[in-house]
């Protein structure tokens, strides 16, 4: 699409102090806000995780009463999914998508501001629900009825928070889709877009597809609780299993919403540090699209034990296992990109390789969970916990870390302390595996999730897991220190600190100017 843009004046000046951040419509400022918010939420969710692991350090009830423990697991899940991982990806998209496609800003700058500032409200609702009578929601992050039909004010606050987060996500997704489809620099066809932009385009479509369904689900829950409807209330002719179907219709695409942008980040980092173009670019695009489509027809594999005809179980089992094919294509392409490349192992590359290695483990345990007879055995055990932490922590989170280390020099014009950053990677890598690898064994031995106490035979592995979790948690404080040190006193970074990087953002000076690409670049 040929777009001629006039540049009406340079207005680099913006309000200073706090009002700069409250009123900003600049995609870079909003990206920064998203990233800091998600890191703050990551610390809150991490604190809850530390509480959970401290309670599970030894058998018996020591620190958290069972009800509070349940609130901790519930809010840990909600805050990490909706408060940490998703906003972090939206923050990366805000910073990177306009710069990578040569656009001056996001399509709807003011809506962008609004979609960010809804988030702290929702975050505060979730956190403050701990302090209302009855405490925070305690029915698990999936808030299945009938537990979520009971519960006090905390559950209503959670429902309201999810409404707000959903609205924010939908607005963010609409913004990203419009930006990518309408505002690319002349000459940048769809199939010339960087992979990170491609994965975000597909993710944004998934978001507008399923977030409204989640909004509908929590609305039904709300009316069941307060307005006398009976969608999920068996007494009134409703069905609690219906909730699970509608929830997972959202929930399964949601897990791909949290991993597709991670695929995109890794697909940027791996070619840069292999000094080769991405192997199989087109197949990467098609694999991403097929993962997104398949993700919409596999939801009931979360419900094999909820009661389902055998033919249903077979369908969802095979459909789920089919996702391993496009995912395998991606892993193959990353490996083939590295094959005979001039590899160097800077921090982003370490995180990307760590991602590939550990995500494959998580992917394989996912295929194992997809097999109905095994899933019936491991349903709601620590095996499932281990599986989804391998794909969400060493998957999504490692990719976010990799992305931050990759683009941080561009964002703030300074280089981070490479030694410390590498140390952050190795500490995270080691402690993550100490914390979560043993949980596979706990799950196979039958330790159930969401229970504050356990039988004595699980004691050793739980202690190992807790030590790993504490180490992993502390390592993230190091990350905060590295970023702050980089912003305040890092060495001056070159415009293109990575020699193998080829995307548009590296043509800009470092730090990226407040307004970039006001005259669109021309792509050959």
């Amino acid at each position, binding site marked *: 699409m040929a777009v001629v*843009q*006039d540049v009406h004046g340079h207005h680099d000046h913006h309000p200073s102090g706090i009002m700069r951040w409250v009123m900003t419509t600049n995609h870079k400022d909003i990206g920064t806000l998203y990233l800091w918010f998600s890191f703050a939420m990551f610390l809150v969710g991490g604190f809850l995780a530390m509480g959970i692991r401290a309670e599970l350090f030894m058998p018996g009830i020591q620190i958290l009463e069972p009800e509070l423990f349940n609130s901790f697991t519930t809010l840990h899940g909600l805050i990490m999914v909706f408060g940490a991982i998703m906003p972090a990806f939206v923050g990366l998209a805000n910073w990177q998508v306009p710069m990578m496609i040569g656009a001056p800003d996001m399509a*709807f700058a003011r809506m962008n501001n609004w979609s960010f500032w809804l988030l702290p409200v929702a975050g505060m609702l979730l956190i403050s629900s701990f302090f209302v009578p009855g405490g925070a929601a305690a029915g698990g992050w999936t808030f299945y009825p009938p537990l979520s039909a009971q519960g006090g004010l905390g559950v209503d606050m959670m429902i309201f928070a999810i409404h707000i987060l959903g609205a924010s996500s939908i607005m963010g997704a609409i913004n990203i889709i419009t930006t990518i489809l309408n505002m690319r620099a002349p000459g940048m066809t769809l199939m010339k877009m960087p992979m990170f932009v491609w994965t975000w385009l597909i993710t944004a479509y998934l978001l*507008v597809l399923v977030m*409204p369904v989640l909004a509908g689900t929590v609305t039904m829950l709300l009316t069941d609780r307060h307005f006398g409807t009976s969608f999920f209330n068996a*007494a009134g002719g409703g069905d609690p299993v219906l909730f699970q179907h509608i929830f997972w219709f959202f929930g399964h695409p949601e897990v791909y919403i949290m991993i597709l942008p991670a695929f995109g980040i890794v697909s940027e980092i791996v070619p840069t540090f292999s000094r080769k173009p991405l192997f199989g670019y087109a197949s990467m695009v098609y694999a991403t699209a097929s993962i997104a489509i398949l993700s919409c027809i596999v939801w009931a594999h979360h419900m094999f034990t909820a009661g389902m005809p055998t033919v249903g179980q077979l369908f969802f089992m095979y459909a789920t296992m089919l996702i391993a094919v496009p995912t395998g294509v991606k892993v193959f392409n990353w490996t083939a990109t590295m094959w005979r490349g001039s590899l160097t192992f800077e921090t982003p590359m370490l995180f990307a390789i760590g991602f590939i290695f550990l995500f494959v483990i998580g992917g394989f345990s996912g295929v194992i969970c997809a097999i109905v007879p095994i899933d019936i055995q491991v349903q709601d055990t620590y095996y499932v916990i281990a599986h989804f932490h391998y794909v969400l922590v060493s998957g999504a989170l490692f990719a976010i870390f990799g992305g931050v280390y990759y683009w941080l020099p561009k964002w703030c014009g300074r280089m981070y302390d490479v030694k410390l950053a590498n140390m952050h990677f190795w500490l995270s890598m080691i402690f993550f595996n100490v914390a979560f690898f043993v949980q596979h064994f706990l799950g196979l031995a039958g330790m159930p999730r969401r229970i504050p106490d356990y039988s004595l035979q699980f004691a050793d592995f739980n202690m190992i897991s807790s030590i790993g979790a504490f180490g992993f948690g502390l390592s993230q404080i190091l990350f905060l220190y590295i970023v702050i040190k980089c912003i305040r006193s890092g060495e001056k970074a070159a415009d293109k600190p990575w020699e193998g990087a080829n995307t548009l953002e590296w043509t800009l000076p470092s730090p990226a100017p407040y307004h970039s690409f006001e005259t669109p670049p021309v792509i050959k």
Partner: protein
Amino acid sequence: MTQSVTNINVTMLKKLLIFSAIMFGFGYALVPMYEKFCEVTGINNLLQPNAVDKNIKVDMSRTIAIELDANVRGMPWQFKPLQSSVKIHPGESIEVMYEIRNMSDQEFTGQAIPSYSPRFLEKYLKKFECFCFTKQVLKPGEVRQMPVKFVIDPEIPVDVNTVTISYTFFALQPGK
């Protein structure tokens, strides 16, 4: 930004907002779709009478003990089976009686929801008549005896000797 780009963007925004609204509605549309799906495939139709197969043969060689259970949730009713258990041969038709009593001085409407153990019993339990097919309205102090007529399909696995049929009465809000 030129006017044309802004216009294209706003058109896109409108389309995507409409799409989001449709998906919100789709979430609600899943409710009747789910019910229709269960009805068509015969899953979960505990509240409809089963068709009677005249050709069911009584299997005199087996006896199955049926435990009867009754519960009330959130209403001042007393609900009990008139016999706590019965023994029948698979294929034999039987009628058991339950009694509800409204202990309060207000009219209440309730609906009984069945629950079976083992869970696969629902496939083999054919009910011709049940108070759970309809809602029950009890005036203050009223007592009512209600039958359940059913047959257990002789196809039921041979290792099943005892089954439990449980009903729970839930209060329905007025006007439902």
